[in-house]
């Protein structure tokens, strides 16, 4: 068995989970919703095993390192963290419908990684040979994942808000009846960002600590650093706007979606469109 096979199983599990969540919204059966969560959990466990196996495979090749070093590995890890944060929120609050808006992010990541990215295990170049790599990547990606979950929730918010404004009665049936109420969605959005913001802060701090340790400058305005700061500013603005000016609801949801767009640009756009120190998969 290879990690690559397990990644395929993972991808299929997330696809199945997404389909089940869709069926859940249509059927409104609690049992179906639970099945969706379990499918995601199954995929998560397989993916955990696969990441572990890939780690071991790198040792078998004689240059062991944590599987966090190239674009393929980071996309896989990103989808793993999305499911992790999602499962935490799901088990805590049990709003199953959220799965339909979050699991697809992870599915998309896995599909892209498996079908479109170079998946070879490569030895680490000198710049990446540091434990800081692990601390930095793990905290950043957990933060990004929380923002992904917040974004999914915000999309639900905006949909529901729009349909309710359009005169549709939420309780009168339709897919909407399985959505949590507007108030709860707003709250969940804030909670997800509350998980993400400290993690992103830690991610930036560990990145700075690493940069200082490796080349003596904790901040050099490299495009990736700058974009992470931009993301940080956007969510800081979200937090201030929210507590102090009552920007709850629709505007908060929009800011959360904008924040996630900036996050994705920070993660991928910088590598694809701008140049700098953090270039994966050249």
């Amino acid at each position, binding site marked *: 068995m290879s990690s690559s096979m397990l990644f395929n199983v993972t991808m299929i599990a997330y696809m199945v989970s997404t389909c089940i969540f869709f069926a859940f919204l249509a059927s409104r059966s609690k049992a179906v919703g639970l099945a969706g969560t379990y499918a995601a959990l199954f995929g998560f466990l397989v993916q955990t095993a696969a990441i572990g196996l890939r780690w071991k495979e790198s040792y078998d090749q004689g240059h062991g390192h944590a599987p966090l070093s190239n674009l393929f590995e980071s996309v896989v890890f990103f989808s793993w963290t999305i499911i992790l944060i999602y499962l935490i929120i799901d088990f805590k609050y049990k709003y199953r419908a959220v799965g339909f808006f979050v699991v697809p992010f992870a599915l998309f990541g896995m599909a892209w990684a498996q079908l479109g990215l170079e998946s070879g295990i490569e030895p680490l*170049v000198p710049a990446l040979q540091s434990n800081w790599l692990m601390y930095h990547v793990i905290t950043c990606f957990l933060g990004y994942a929380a923002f992904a979950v917040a974004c999914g929730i915000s999309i639900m918010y905006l949909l529901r808000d729009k349909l309710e404004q359009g005169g549709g009665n939420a309780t009168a049936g339709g897919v909407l009846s399985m959505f949590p109420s507007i108030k709860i969605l707003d709250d969940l959005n804030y909670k997800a960002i509350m998980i993400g913001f400290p993690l992103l802060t830690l991610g930036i701090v560990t990145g700075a600590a690493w940069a200082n340790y490796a080349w003596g400058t904790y901040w050099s305005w490299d495009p990736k650093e700058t974009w992470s700061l931009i993301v940080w500013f956007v969510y800081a603005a979200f937090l201030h706007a929210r507590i102090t000016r009552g920007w709850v609801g629709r505007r908060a949801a929009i800011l959360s979606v904008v924040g996630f767009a900036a996050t994705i640009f920070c993660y991928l756009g910088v590598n694809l469109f701008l140049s700098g120190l953090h270039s994966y998969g050249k």
Partner: protein
Amino acid sequence: MTTNKRGVAHKLWDFFCSLKLTIFLLIGLALTSIIGTIIQQGPQREYLATLSETKIRLYSALGFFDMYHSWWFILLLYLLTLNLICCSIKRLPRVWKIVSEPVLVMDEGFEKSLTNVKELKLAGSKAELKEKLASFLKAEFAQAVVTEKGSEYHLFAQKNRLCRLGVYVVHFSIIIIFIGALLGSFFGYKAYVNIPEGGSVSQVQSRSGRAIDLGFAVRCEKFSVAFYDTGAPKEFRSVLTVTENGQPVKGYQNIPIIVNDPLTYKGITFYQSSYGQSDEGALYHLSVRDRKGGAPIKLDVRQGERAKLPGGALITVTEATQNVRPFMREFDGPGAQVEFTPAGGQPQPFVILSEKYQAFNAQHGGDLVITFDGMDQKFYTGLQVAKDPGVLVVWLGCFLMVVGICMAFFMSHQRVWARISDAGVTLGGSASKNPTGFEMSFEELVQKLKKQ
């Protein structure tokens, strides 16, 4: 006049205390920061060549080529700091009062200011209810303080009061980080230096081109580079020794440094950053044989040295490489550019290669066939040198920021009041964070109390 003046000062103060300004500054910083990621900072000539004349003039006028140090970007950062300080001065005393002097009694006026209020009809006398509520709050929420006022009992309980200060810890930490950054920029420097193997330096060159005395010397004993089978670099390693007054410093001899593992001495840190071939002192190995046969003679020649060959000819190696493939596509292995002067003749430049290409080597050299056997090449190591006395302050700020954020986010100052009067029981509640979440837990608390 004076009132007018005070009016202006007042307005200015309000302006700097306003959260609208905060949001404007945060979004403004986010948007302007994008510019510097799109326009190359400290631009290279090739990049400038792609821009039109007008653009270059416009960008330099606006400071876009060194945007993060431009006056207006720095101004935004100072405004942010000022905004932060003013906001704190304005709000901290009030918050401190909430923390240190809680409102123990919920009167009618105060009740109106609360969003969570519930009137309950509960069985029992006021004294019984007081006991019941006190133990209920203790079990379900927090220890309550009981105040008797007229014919009413008032209970007050609170959780996590100190987390109110979390936000101020975060804001304070930002100021600390700025202080650390300023310390670094005033009292520290970033520099670089190249040291050939066996060489020693006591001065480094700052990024602005200034020479800086280290106050000690650093010698590069050895530099090596290793590659993976794939050809990707695996390790760059310099072995350094610190010397003072010509003597090696104890504990700082033959210290290997690699990328991600620097050497620090007296607050100055040396980072492995680049390397290259040092021309100084390379030793070239040649063999010379007579065309007519006979045993080859081995010859070691230093860089730039004129060596005598049998028969009176002279040879100088001008340039050499371990692998000629990049320059001569059909060949590989070591190769050297030499200047050969036959006895009494004119200098002739040509290339010699390894043993493998003897036919090639035989094209020149008169009576002799000269072969290049390789070289003992010397490297120089390129080191980044940094001194930053502010860095610990920055880390302190970062630490406080993370702690403060956790205080501010994961803890909410929750307060519950109960008034027991002849009219019944009134519960009131408020939370510093997450009103929606508190509303739900307040409702839960009320339901539990009803069931009792």
